[in-house]
Every structure is written in C-alpha cells, then in structure tokens.
C-alpha cells in the first residue's frame, strides 16, 4: 500500500532522511522510534506534503501512484492522515464545521454525496465518545484553548471521522499524562482494522504498551537501522538508543 524506496530528503538545507526503505501493508501497525533529530517528524511531514522539505532522492508510492505528484489535500482525500505532534489552533473556525468541510471534501473525492449538518452532528458525536471528547469542544474553534491532551484526542477524533487507509501519528503520545495516554491508546486500538495501516512515530516506547505494533523500526540519523518485533521496543525502553548509534 505504501512503498518507500531509498527516500532522501532535506529539511531546509539540511539532509535529514538518508535512504529510507519501508513497506506498509493494509492492517499493519508499524512503530518508528528514534532519538531526537533522527528524522522522525521529517518523514511524517514529507509523506503529508508539507512545504519546507525537499525530496532529494528515492520514491514513495501510495497504492501504486507517485505520492509526490499529489498535493497535501489530494493525499488526504486518497486516504493518508497525519496526526500532528503540535496541532494548530484555528480561531474563528468551529471544530465541527472544520471536520464537516474535511469530511465532505473526502466524500466528494470518492464520488459520494456530501453529508448535511444534522447527520454530520450525529456522526461526530458518536465518534467523539471514542476519545471521550465533550460536546463543548466540538463547538469551540479548532483546538483553541484545548489542553495538550484534548488536542491529541481531537487528532484521533479527526482520524475516526475521516476514516483513512493510512494514519501516520507523529508523537501523538508526547505531552500526555497517563490518563490521556490511555484514552488516546484506546482510541487508536478501536480504529485498528484489517484495511487500515497505522504508523506510530514516537520517541518513547510507552505508547506501545497500549497500542501493540506488528513491527518496530529504529530510525537513527536518517536511516532505519534496525527492525524487529515488539521486543525491540522493550529493549529500547531498557537500554535507550545509544547501543544502536555506535555505528555512525
């Protein structure tokens, strides 16, 4: 479904990704772990199509198509979702209105009729239960005045509503207390299914206690230096990243 081949990319002028190879199939949950500045967030942003990053080599195919030929909105409509490490606040744009616009943009792309406001409200209230987000936060402007945990839960709510084929969750666990982490982990687990792939990008292994990945990759200095099963994450928890960084 997602095939990353020898991907090189720069953030600004600085080479960050130095040859990434990764294949993600439907239903799989991959964890990409790595120390700070190893290229984790760059990978997420390059896949989502953010400005300021230049792809300098390699290719990414999404369902057989060239991902880099698509605008960010096309990627989203084709089923790629990025959960942000730092979700932005958007004063003046209501959370529900925003989600409805996004949802209908995706439906339109799929050739489905747009959903009206009343039906959408029913849908979003149902989905909000999944991450225990109160109705009040649905009517407020997007993320404005939300706590750190509420912002991350709002990201998972968006994922639930948009129903992507691939969710890339960038440091979704950062800044969460243990209760919020449980809620977010529960939300992600509820969204796991045979058709949906999930890529968890994280510094700390603790999220993986709640969301158990099929594969764990370690990203160091722009390369995936090691892949393994869940035990690899436990090893990282015990030993840190140092033992893998020696070869640099």
């Amino acid at each position, binding site marked *: 479904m997602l095939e990353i081949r020898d991907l090189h990319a720069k953030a600004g002028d600085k080479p960050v990704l130095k040859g990434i190879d990764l294949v993600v199939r439907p239903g799989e949950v991959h964890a990409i772990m790595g120390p700070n500045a190893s290229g984790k967030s760059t990978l997420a942003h390059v896949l*989502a*199509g*953010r*400005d300021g990053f230049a792809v300098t080599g390699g290719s990414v195919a999404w369902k057989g198509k060239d991902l880099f030929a698509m*605008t*960010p*909105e096309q*990627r*989203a*409509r084709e089923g790629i*979702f*990025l959960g*942000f490490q730092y*979700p*932005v606040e*958007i*004063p*003046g*744009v209501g959370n529900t209105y*925003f*989600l409805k*616009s*996004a949802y209908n*943009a*995706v439906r339109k*792309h799929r050739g489905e009729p747009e959903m009206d406001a009343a039906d959408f409200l029913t849908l979003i209230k149902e989905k909000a239960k999944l991450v225990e987000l109160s109705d009040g936060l649905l009517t407020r*402007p997007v993320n404005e005045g939300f706590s750190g945990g509420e912002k991350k839960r709002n990201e998972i709510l*968006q994922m639930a509503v*948009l129903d992507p084929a691939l969710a890339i969750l960038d440091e979704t666990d950062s800044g969460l207390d243990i209760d919020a982490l449980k809620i977010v982990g529960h939300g992600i687990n509820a969204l796991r299914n045979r058709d949906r792939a999930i890529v968890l990008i994280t510094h700390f292994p603790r999220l993986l206690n709640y969301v158990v990945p099929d594969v764990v990759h370690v990203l160091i200095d722009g390369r995936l230096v090691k892949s393994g099963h869940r035990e690899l994450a436990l090893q990282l928890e015990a030993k840190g990243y140092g033992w893998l960084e020696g070869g640099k």
Partner: protein
Amino acid sequence: MTKESCLSEYDRLEPALPGLRDLRRRAIARFGELGFPTGREEEWRFTDVSPVAERDFPHPDEEPDASEVEELASGPLAKSQLAFVDGLYAPEFSSPPHGVTAESLGDLLDRNPAAVEPFLGRTDGGAFAALNTALFRDGAFVRVPRGTAVAEPLHLIFLSTTRAKPFAAHPRILAVVEEGASIRIAECHAGGTSPHLTNAVVELEVGEGAHVDWSKIQREGPEAYHFATVQVRQARGSVFASHSISLGAALSRNDLGVLLDGEGAECSLDGLYELGGTQLADNHTTIDHAKPHGTSRELYKGILDGRSRGVFDGRIVVRPGAQKTDAIQTNRNLLLSAGALANTKPQLEIFANDVKCKHGATIGKLDPDVLFYLRSRGIGREEAQRLLIHAFACEVLDAVPVAEVRERLEEYLLDLVSRKAGV
C-alpha cells in the same frame, strides 16, 4: 472636481437647493478656504484625492436609466424603507416605517426647515463635509421620539446608477434619537459601474440613555469614489455601536467622529475593509471622551489582496476630567498578497490621570502552518483560504445585529473571497 468648479457648481445650484441658505453660504466659503486636501496634510498622508479633485463630478441633470433602477430595486432595494437614487429620495421604492419619523430631508427642508435647522451642521468637519453642506439636495431625516424602542431595523439605501458622464451625489443623513429611545439602522451604498463621487455626511444625536446601532455597508462600484463624514454626539448613559464595512469603490474614506458628551456613555466601533485590485479604503476615527466614566471599544479589521491599500487612523482623546475612561482600540490586517499594503496609526491623547487605555495593531499573512493543517485534512487550498479569511472577518460580521444585513454580507464576502482565491 477642482475647487473652482465646486464653487461654480454651488452658484449654479444654489437657487434650487432646499433651505439653509446661511449655513450653505458659510459652508461653501469654508470649502473655498480649505480646498481639497493634499498629501501634505497629516490626515491625508496616505490617501490621494487627486482623482476626485482633478475631474468634474457635477450633480446629474438627466434622469437615471429607468431599467437599471428597476433592476437595482428588485435586489438591494427590496427591504428598504428609505431609498435614494443618485442622491435623491425615491418614494416609489420607499416604504417608511411606522412609529418613527423617517423621511426625505430635502422634502422636509422645503416644508418645515425649522424642524431640522437646530441639528444640522453642528460640527464643522473637513472640506468634504463642508462641500456636502453647501451642495446636498436630499437625504434622510430620522427622529425616534423619547422612550420609543423601534423593533424593526431601519434600512437606508443609497444607490448609484451607471451614467455616461461622471456625477456626484452628496447625501445627508440627520438622525435624532431622543432620551431612552432605541433603534437599529442599516445604511447601504451600492450600485453604479461608471465613475461617480459619493460624498455623504451623517449627523447623529444619541439622547440620554438611548441606544443606537448603526451598520454601514459600502459596496459601491469599481469606479466610485466614496467619502463619508459621520459625526455622533452621545449624551449621558447612551450606547452607540457602529459596524462600518467597506468592500467597494476605487477609493473610500470614512471619517467617523464620536463625542462622548455625557457621563457613562459607551461606544463600540467595528470596521471591516476587504479590498483587492488597486482599491484603497481609509478609515479615520476619533473618539472624544469628554466626560467621566465613558467606555469605548474599537475593532477594525482589514483583508487586503492584490495591490490594495488599507489605512486605519484611530484617534482617542481623553479630555481633562474624563476620569475612569476605559478605551481599547485594535486594528488587525491580513495581507493576502505581496503587493497589498496596510497603514495603521493609533493616536492616544490623554489628559486625565485615572483612565485605562489600550491599543494594539497587527499586520500579518495567513499562517502557513494553519493552511497546511487544513489541507492535510483534505480541504483544498482555496477552500482553506476561504475558511481562514471568513474566520478573520467573523469577529466583526458576527456583531452586526441586523440578520439580513449580516447574512447578505457573509454571502457577499465569501463570494468575493472565492473569486479572489482563484486569482
């Protein structure tokens, strides 16, 4: 309209102008002294009026095109109580409300000048206001009697038609809202794709404890020059809110002056200018806190695209003795293109020591992080821009209390935004 042609226009029209001979004579003399403002004057530093000063804009002699008037009438005029076409009252499109006086000022001056003379021309204003006083033929007179709460909003519509030659309208509005009375007024200027000058003056008296909410929508044609001088005097404990929306005209200038002339008076002045191409909108406001315990809130927002320019100059005066004054002024500008320009200038002149006055101004672009966030959710670039521009404007739009005006504005603005986003 050179100064000389204005003076001869006065001589030509004077015998036929309704009432106020002395006032008009003084006004044209004052205009003769002042002449049109130039960029050397601080108050006109950013706004070049030479397109108006170097070309003639006489009162039109011929009747407007009937079919165009008919067409305009079915659109913006549909809800009007008082309609004016090229500056003259159009009774056929007007349905004055009950319970309140709202009528043609020109008719009233012909019939009973004593009823309005005491209220007219109480403040000087600048050259444009003086020219209006000298030349105005018509306009609206509104009087809300003591203690009367007018439930329905009053719509005043000023339409310009399209003509072969440039022309001018100098509409005048006088509104007297007496003690304890309340009214919502919506003033709209629209129409006309040929060059014309609108030079309006509004004088508003807000009596003790009275409430007035005034929306002004300027969406004149692309070759219009729109000037407006608005003078508001508030008595003790009165509340005045204004919403000044500038969308049209090649050049527009609003001079809004509010005198808080009684203790505990409150005003809130909102403004929105949404411009593209080479449009210029200049808003000058003066809030004069003359008495203690006054409150003023001011929020002007600009959305500037193309090579347009928005000017905001907000002056707040707190006179000696106007203690416990509480004033906040904010001007925010959103630049949508590299060629757009915003000038903002706060002026606080405070002569009392126990006051709270704050001001702030910003000039910025759409936040690329926010745009990316929206696009990463499947919302297209144009739609994302539209959402964000609307979000920026809604702080001012949402406060417009007259529902049909607010809704029409939202539609118009979104339309404008989508057209511009496509460029």
